[in-house]
């Protein structure tokens, strides 16, 4: 099977503009979807399939990628998605989506051959900035700024690929999401009233939206690898574009971003909804998240919207997100805890919305940002300075790296080739240690 994929690559690489050595075997790295561990209900996994990264001998990065797609993705759907991606790339003026070279039936699999995209995705970058040994507030600041700047630019460009010229009202869909959420999460029954739902829908309907090409992944954090997007080969691209018109597409990812575990870890003392709300304040203290988020809101078409309107959209998107997570984890042991968690968040969403209604400009509640990097969680200390040895700038264990490989090699060589000498040295060291211990006792 994989040999036939390799054969296909060899036969067509020249026409794709990928240079390959004449005879040497390509190296292949397989990447499976972690969701296929079976911990969560399979939604996207069947479509994502397995990725094979192909490396020329001695290359330090892959030269192309082949992707084994699931049966649910038809050739027609792939063709439609590819066309939309290409027109998006043209409108953007740069290649946001990787070039798809070819789609072929190999054995019983449909395989997509595409350009390899280098760079860790945002989720990895964010996790390193927050959880990695090189974690620092400055690293987090850089990653957050990069995420929102690149994502804002990409969405602004995607909005230019309009699929429907007619204005769209999203209030009815938001109402539908709210009711579905209440069915899935009965714990929120007394919290989300019909009046709140109606008020939210009215605010949303005051803004006319357009249907356009959307980013199909839910998490921006695991979506864009560096400055490039992954492909968007999904079965129902038109349906997704209809469901997420205008700024809804961007806000989906904003909510997901604040729900991402690295961000919640970084602001452990703060509720993510308060964090998000504080970003909407026009006159808040500048902090590491607020500025990029406000710029992002401008990029997705909410520049002139009031904090109250933005929050109405956030509320609708929150219900959508909650439904998605609750359905995703429906068969999982954490489903009950998740329902309680979302009921609590629903209370905060409504509370913040009510406060904004009392003070529509957001000044009373949101004048002072609650996200202050001096108050970040105690474990999350600033490490991004030259003296800190975990920093990627100074390299980890730089001294260790120099002497440990040869030392270990010598160690193993002595142990394998001269076992008697090895045992003798260990014995001598043991005796010396014992002698030192006895001396220290005296």
């Amino acid at each position, binding site marked *: *099977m*994989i*040999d*036939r994929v390799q*054969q296909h690559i060899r036969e067509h690489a020249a026409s794709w503009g990928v240079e390959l050595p004449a005879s040497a075997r390509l*190296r*292949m*790295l*397989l*990447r*499976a*979807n*972690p969701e*296929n*561990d*079976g*911990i969560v209900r399979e939604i996207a*996994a069947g479509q994502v399939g*397995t990725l*094979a990264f192909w*490396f020329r*001998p*001695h*290359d*330090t*990065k*892959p030269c192309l990628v082949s992707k*084994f797609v699931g049966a649910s993705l038809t050739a027609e759907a792939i063709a439609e998605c590819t066309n939309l991606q290409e027109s998006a790339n043209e409108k953007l003026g740069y290649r946001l989506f990787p070039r798809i070279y070819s789609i072929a039936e190999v*054995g*019983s699999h449909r395989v997509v051959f595409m350009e390899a995209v*280098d*760079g*860790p995705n945002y*989720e*990895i970058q964010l*996790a*390193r900035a927050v*959880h*990695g*040994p090189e974690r620092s507030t400055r690293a987090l600041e850089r990653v957050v700024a990069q995420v929102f700047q690149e994502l804002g630019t990409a969405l602004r460009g995607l909005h230019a690929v309009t699929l429907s010229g007619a204005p769209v009202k999203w209030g009815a869909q938001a109402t539908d999401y709210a009711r579905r959420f209440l069915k899935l999460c009965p714990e929120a029954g007394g919290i989300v009233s019909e009046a709140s739902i109606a008020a939210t829908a009215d605010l949303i309907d005051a803004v006319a939206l357009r249907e356009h090409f959307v980013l199909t992944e839910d998490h921006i954090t695991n979506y864009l*690898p560096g400055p490039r997007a992954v492909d968007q080969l999904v079965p129902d691209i038109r349906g997704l574009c209809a469901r997420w018109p205008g700024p809804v597409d961007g806000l989906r990812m904003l909510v997901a971003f604040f729900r991402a*575990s*690295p961000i919640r870890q970084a602001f452990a003392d703060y509720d993510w909804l308060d964090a998000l709300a504080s970003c909407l304040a026009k006159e808040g203290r500048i902090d590491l998240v607020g500025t990029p988020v406000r710029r992002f809101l401008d990029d997705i078409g909410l520049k002139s919207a009031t904090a109250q309107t933005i929050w109405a959209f956030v509320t609708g998107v929150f219900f959508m997100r909650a439904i998605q997570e609750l359905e995703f984890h429906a068969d999982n042991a954490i489903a009950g805890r998740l329902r309680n968690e979302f009921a609590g968040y629903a209370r905060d969403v409504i509370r913040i919305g009510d406060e904004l209604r009392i003070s529509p400009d957001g000044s009373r509640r949101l004048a002072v940002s609650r996200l202050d990097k001096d108050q970040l969680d105690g474990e999350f200390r600033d490490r991004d300075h030259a003296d800190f040895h*975990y920093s*990627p700038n100074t*390299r*980890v*264990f730089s001294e260790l*790296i120099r002497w*440990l*490989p040869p030392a*270990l*090699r010598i160690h*193993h060589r002595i*142990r394998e080739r001269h*076992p008697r000498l*090895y045992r003798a040295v260990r014995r001598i060291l043991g005796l010396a240690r014992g002698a030192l211990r006895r001396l220290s006792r005296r």
Partner: protein
Amino acid sequence: MTDAGTLRKSRWLDVYQCPACGGPLLKNPDVWECTACRTRYPVRAGVPLLNVAASHSPGFVGVMKRDDSQLASFIGTAESHGWEAALRAVQTPGEPDRVLEAAAPNRVSWRHAANLAPGSVVVDIGAGTGGVACQLAADCSVVAIDRSFIDAAFVAVRARQQKLNTLDSIVAEGSRLPLSSGIADLVTLIGVLEWVPADFPDRDPRESQLEALREVRRVLKPNGCLYLAIENRYYFGYYLGVPEPHARLRYVSLMDREAADRYSRDTRDRPFLELTHSLPDYRTLLAEAGFQRVESYWLYPDYRLTHAVVPVDDPAVARWFSDQHLDPRSHHRLFEQGLYSFFRFSPPDFLAYSVRDYGFVAWAEDTERHD
């Protein structure tokens, strides 16, 4: 125990031979009989016992349950309430979810590396609860072999409930396979080879492993391959005090074999037979067993649920993987942060110490297959 008649299999793959003499087997519903040496092998609950002596082993299910007295009801539960319910009943709190492990598609995420094509004949040695065998049986013909009757009977029930007609489950010994020569496109040995010497405590452990590999080589087609997944003897974590997972002793795999054996006898009254090796040693072992071409992989995070199959023959590829894909959240505690740093920032020379589980695709002949 469930009525054997309800579990009777209508059609067996045409690949079996007598494990004692290599003669043809007459497959009666209740007994298989060698037409050459007349040895009779009983069939219990639809599972032929081609090694009666070892079939009492509690197997993987027994290890999960930690209580052999309840094993008798296990197959009955699987039959009456479904295989998933039976596994849930033996789940030990705090251990990985065995149902997920048995059903997760990532159990076979390596299949492209082994170049497995639909319709192939696969032999899964040490099938356990059928996590690999039952998934491959969706489009391949599979012989699931286990030395434990409980495990083999469980896989048979599971296969029947999942309507996998091309899966045979049998009790047999990995080092004496009851299979004709040159019948398999793929043989899997996942977490099995290190246990082989434990069956032959009086023999040199490495020789036992070599013999098992030669036996695998015998049943492979000329262009067939072995998928071997096993731990690295010199994994970095062992230097930091992570217990060796088979013997459950610290530092034991790092010691020379004699010292390890003495240490094992002193601490657990058993010789140290669960041999793992370094990357070059595995390659040597496979070459000695007659495999012409060996591809080596780092199975990340482990060989059970593998998210990435990373070639280690070229350190640059593993370096790229570490830089682009390792997520510190999987290594969140202080000790694991050390390991994470080691993975990500260590030079390529250190790769041999960073890898916990290796995967090897060993080809019987050095030819590329075009199915």
